[in-house]
C-alpha cells in the first residue's frame, strides 16, 4: 500500500469538455440531425457570402476618378468615393461645408454629454440642446447673418438632410406626443375630443399623402408669391404625423401605470401637472423606451419619402447621382452604400436604447 505524500497537481479538464472542439460538439454537432443541419447551414452561408465578398471586395475597383477606371466585374466603389461629399452634404456649396461640420460636431458633443452618465450639469446641457442650439444651428446652416453667405434649403441634402429631418421630427414629436397622450386620457371633453380627432386623423393617412399634400396642394391655397419653404413643409408634415404615433405609444405606457399611483399622489396634495410630471410620466416613459425607439427608427427610415417632394435626402441624392450620364449603371453600389448608412444609424439607436433599458432597469428583472 502506497500513500501519496503530495497532492496530485490539478489537471486540465478533458479535451472533450472544454475549448472550441467541445463547444462545436455541444452546439453544432450534438447528433446526426444537428450535424446535417449545421453542414447545410454552412453551405448556404458559403453560397451567399462568397459571391458577396467576391463582388464587394475582391473584384471591386477602389482607385480612379471615372467610370473608365471600373472593370465592371465587381463593385465600383470609385463611384461612391467620387460622390461621397455629395452623399453626405447634398448640394451644399463645397466651400461652406465647415458650417455643416461645426453644427454636427457640436450636436454630437451635446448628445454625447447627455448620453454619458458620469458627466455633470445634465440639466443645463439639455436646456442648451433643446432651445438655443436649434436656433443657432439653423442660422449657421442657412446663413444670411454675420456675413455668412445664404445657403437656401434646396441645396441641403444627403445624410445631412436625413439627420435634420429625423432629429427635428423626433425632438418635436416627443413633447407633442406626450401632450396628446395626456389629452386623450383627460376628463375634459373638448381637449379629449380634439386629441382623439388629431391622433386618428394623422394616424389614418399615409405619410406619403401628407408630404404630397404639403408639396402639391398647399402652394395652390396660399397667395401667389407667398411660398412656404419645402423643407419647412416637410418638417411640419413629418412632425404632425410622428406626434400622433408617439401619442399612442405613450398612452400605452400611461395605461400600464396602476391607478393607485396617481391616486396616492393626489392624496399627497399634488396637482395634475405634478402628478403627471413627477409620478406617472417618469415610470411610463422608461417603460416605453422600446416603443419610442421603435417609432424613432421607423421615422428615420420614413424620411426617405421626402424624395417625392423633390428634397434630396440620403437616398434621394444617391438616386440623383445614379442619373448622371457619366455614372450610369452603378445603382447597386449606390443603394448598398445608402443601406449601410441607414443600418449604422438605426443599429446605434437600437443599441443605445438597450443600454438605457438596462440602466433604468425597466424589465424589473431583480
Amino acid at each position, binding site marked *: 500500500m502506497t500513500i501519496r505524500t503530495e497532492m496530485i497537481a490539478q489537471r486540465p479538464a478533458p479535451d472533450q469538455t472544454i475549448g472550441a472542439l467541445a463547444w462545436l460538439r455541444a452546439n453544432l454537432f450534438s447528433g446526426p440531425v444537428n450535424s446535417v443541419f449545421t453542414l447545410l447551414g454552412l453551405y448556404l452561408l458559403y453560397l451567399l457570402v462568397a459571391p458577396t465578398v467576391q463582388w464587394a471586395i475582391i473584384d471591386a475597383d477602389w482607385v480612379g476618378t471615372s467610370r473608365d477606371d471600373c472593370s465592371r466585374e465587381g463593385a465600383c466603389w470609385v463611384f461612391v468615393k467620387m460622390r461621397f461629399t455629395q452623399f453626405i452634404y447634398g448640394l451644399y456649396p463645397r466651400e461652406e461645408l465647415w458650417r455643416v461640420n461645426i453644427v454636427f460636431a457640436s450636436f454630437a458633443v451635446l448628445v454625447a454629454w447627455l448620453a454619458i452618465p458620469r458627466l455633470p450639469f445634465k440639466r443645463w446641457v439639455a436646456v442648451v440642446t433643446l432651445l438655443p442650439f436649434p436656433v443657432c444651428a439653423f442660422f449657421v446652416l442657412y446663413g444670411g447673418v454675420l456675413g455668412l453667405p445664404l445657403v437656401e434649403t434646396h441645396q441641403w441634402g444627403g445624410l445631412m438632410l436625413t439627420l435634420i429631418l429625423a432629429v427635428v421630427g423626433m425632438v418635436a414629436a416627443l413633447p407633442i406626443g406626450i401632450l396628446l397622450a395626456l389629452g386623450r386620457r383627460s376628463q375634459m371633453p373638448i381637449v379629449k375630443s380634439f386629441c382623439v380627432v388629431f391622433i386618428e386623423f394623422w394616424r389614418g393617412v399615409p405619410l406619403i399623402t401628407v408630404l404630397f399634400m404639403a408639396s402639391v396642394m398647399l402652394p*395652390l391655397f*396660399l*397667395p401667389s*408669391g407667398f411660398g412656404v419653404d419645402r423643407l419647412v413643409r416637410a418638417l411640419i408634415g413629418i412632425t404632425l404625423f410622428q406626434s400622433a404615433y408617439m401619442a399612442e405609444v405613450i398612452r400605452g405606457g400611461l395605461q400600464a401605470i396602476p391607478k393607485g399611483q396617481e391616486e396616492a399622489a393626489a392624496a399627497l396634495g399634488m396637482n395634475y401637472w405634478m402628478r403627471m410630471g413627477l409620478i406617472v410620466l417618469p415610470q411610463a416613459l422608461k417603460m416605453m423606451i422600446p416603443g419610442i425607439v421603435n417609432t424613432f427608427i421607423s421615422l428615420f427610415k420614413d424620411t426617405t419619402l421626402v424624395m417625392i417632394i423633390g428634397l434630396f435626402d440620403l437616398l434621394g*441624392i444617391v438616386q440623383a*447621382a445614379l442619373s*448622371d*450620364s457619366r455614372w*450610369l449603371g452603378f445603382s447597386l453600389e449606390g443603394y448598398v452604400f445608402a443601406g449601410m448608412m441607414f443600418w449604422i444609424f438605426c443599429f446605434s439607436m437600437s443599441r443605445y436604447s438597450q443600454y438605457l433599458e438596462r440602466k433604468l432597469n425597466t424589465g424589473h428583472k431583480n
Partner: protein
Amino acid sequence: MLNNNKLNTHKLNPHKLAVMASAGALMIGAAGVAQAETLEDTLERGTVQCGVSDGLPGFSAPDDDGEWQGLDADVCRAVAAAVFGDAEAVRFTSLNAVERFTALQSGEVDVLSRNTTWTTTRDTTLGLNFTGVTFYDGQGFLVSRDLEIESAEQLDGAAICIQSGTTTELNLADYFRANDMEFDPIVFDTSEQTVGGFETGRCDVLTSDTSQLAALRIQLSEPDNAMILSDVISKEPLGPVVRQGDDQWFNIVKWSLFAMLNAEELGITSENVDEMLESENPNIARLLGQDGNYGEGMGLEADWAYNIIKQVGNYAEAYDRNVGMDSPLEIERGVNALWTDGGLQYAPPIR
C-alpha cells in the same frame, strides 16, 4: 415623357395625379397667373428660378461637384445669360413629374425645363405656355444585335419589356394594333429592373423614349450588343414651359432657345463668338447685337444673344455636350438636326 421613374416605385400614377393637381389649380382660379412681372421680379432677385427634373440622364442631373448638368439645365442657363449676362445666375429646383406644374403655377419656379411633352391639354388647360422644342423625343425600341432586326415592323410576336404606369404602354398597344401585330408585354417597375429583364433575355425588345433608351443601353453589361431602332412610334416634343399671362417672359424664354438655334445655323460657337463680332454677315451682326438692339423688345440688353452663345454655347454645343456624341449617351442628332441638315430644328430669323 409623362412619367417619372422614381414615382412609379411608389405605385402612384403620376399622370392622374398631375391632372388632379392641375384641376385643383383651376378650381382655385389659376393662382399663379397674377404674377405678370416675371422679368422685374427676376432682376430684383438676381437669379432665374428654374425647375428641372430630379435626375434624368443627359437632361438634368447633378455632377460630381453638385452642379446641375444637362440639356434642360442649359436652357435655364441660357435664359440667365440673356437676362443677367451670367449663365450661373440660376436657382435650380428639382421637381418630380407630379408637382412640376404646380410649382410653375404657384411661382416657385419661373421656367419649367424638365423634359415635359408639349400636348394640347397641357398647353391649353393648365394656364401654361410651351415656348419651343428643345428635344424632339419619341418612343423607340432597343433590340439585341443578334436578332438582326432593322425595323419595328419586324417585331410581330416579340416579348417587349416596358416600365409600368407610363404612356409607353398605351403607345405600344396602339402601334401594334394599328399594324395588326401581336406582342407579349413584360412590365417592370423601375429602370434597373427593366434593364435586368432585357439582359437576362426575358424579352427581345425594350421600349421607352429614345432619350431614355440611350441611358438604359449604357447600363447593359455589353452596350455594343444592343442597338436602338430608327423607328419612332410616338411624338414627344420636349420643351420649356412658362406661365400664361406674361408675354415678355414668354418671349425671353422662347428667344433664348431660338438664339442658340440661330447661332448654330450661322456657325457661331462659344469659341468663335468674339471673332464673329467683327463679321460682315448682317444676320450675325443682328444676332450678336452689333446692328440694332433686338433685345429691347424683351426688356434685355443688346448683347443678350452674345452672352448666351459665349457662356452656354449654341444648340449643337449644348446637345453634343449633354446628350450627343461628346456625352456617354451618344444620341444621334436625327430629327433634332437643323432644318438645313434634314432635321426639324428651325428658328425664326432675328431681324
